[in-house]
């Protein structure tokens, strides 16, 4: 069966026709062409697909598009403002927080949920928080460094 869904994605009202079984990540990537949200595993393990739905980080591969009906969704594409990277994105660039970049959108979206709850996390808290985000390249060290730097920048630090 197909249905119409409407939601707000990155501040823009969008709608589209999907099947009941269409995943949110498919709707974002295929209907809206927002391909910054990645699919790494499709089995709820890797976190490459993390987006925010009504302010909470979720795995977009483990949510149906219809479940996000009426929701506020933010993807990695929604972070930069007027061509200027978000401080967390900038921190990943500055601190070599990515190599191939496949995990990065999910890492950044997950990190922002952490900083929202805990503006000044310790490095142990960052590592603990990244339980649901896998990276095959970096060894995590620079990701943690990036998130700490991003959190500091968001607090207004240097």
């Amino acid at each position, binding site marked *: 069966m197909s*249905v119409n869904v409407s939601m707000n994605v990155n501040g823009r009202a969008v709608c589209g026709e999907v099947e009941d079984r269409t995943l949110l990540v498919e709707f974002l990537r295929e209907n809206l062409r927002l391909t910054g949200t990645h699919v790494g595993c*499709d*089995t709820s393990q890797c*976190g490459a697909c993390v987006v925010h739905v009504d302010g909470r980080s979720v795995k977009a591969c483990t949510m149906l598009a219809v479940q996000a009906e009426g929701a506020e969704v933010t993807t990695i594409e929604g972070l930069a403002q007027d061509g200027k990277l978000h401080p967390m994105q900038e921190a990943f660039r500055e601190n070599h927080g990515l190599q191939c970049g496949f995990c990065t959108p999910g890492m950044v979206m997950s990190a922002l949920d952490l900083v929202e709850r805990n503006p000044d996390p310790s490095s142990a808290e960052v590592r603990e928080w990244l*339980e649901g985000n896998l990276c095959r390249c970096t060894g995590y060290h620079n990701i943690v460094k990036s998130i700490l730097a991003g959190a500091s920048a968001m607090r207004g630090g240097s």
Partner: protein
Amino acid sequence: MYAFNYHRPDTLEAAAAALAAAEDGRVMAGGQTLIPTLKQRLASPSDVVDLATVPGLGGVRREGDAIVVGAMVRHAEVAASAEVRAAIPALASLADGIGDPQVRNCGTIGGSIVNADPAADYPAAVVGLGATVRTDRRTIVGDDFFTGLFETALDEGEIVVSVSFPVPRRAAYVKFPNPASRYAVVGVMVADTASGIRVAVTGAGDSVFRVGAMETALAGNFSADAIRNVAVSQDALNEDIHASAEYRAHLVGVMARRAVAAAAG
């Protein structure tokens, strides 16, 4: 994932009616187990009934000597709830140790207990704290709720509404997590409650179980030493790539002693 019809009822009655009318209906809560199951085609329901917009299934509240958690309350909400942290910190920390932040942001207590995964954490709280489960039809004592591997006492189409946890004098939950998924290889809830000492083990068997010998020993002396010599039989314990039955039996003792020490401290 096979095709299905998605429903979003606005009342509990409408949800029950949608399930009853479906050829093969399934409730959806956080979807963190259901969606992976559908993707793997381990289930192929004709209809999926989402409880997200059903009123009365959310919220955490204190009711007399108990904390009542709505079926649709997410793990992250239990972990962050001031009410739960004050009355039953062991329950808040159990919820905080489930999976990862994104799973905790979606997964619900109702979905977790109905799924009755042998390695899930919440069953240890339901049985270990002597909780009761309220459904749209009746109230089920926690000790009777879990009936086997992925099996519960629920009837066809029955919907869990809330779980009521009596506030214990002291309690602690300690698990040996699978390093990848955080599911419990073995998890033990120890609680000193108005109805006596309770020790409930998840992860080790087909389903959560109590260890009577430990409960008796702890009733006389609530200390880790009191259960040092209580042996747990490895018969009928789970054996898989993560741990042998013998290792799980050993872990039950270690996790139980750590939980007693944490509760007593």
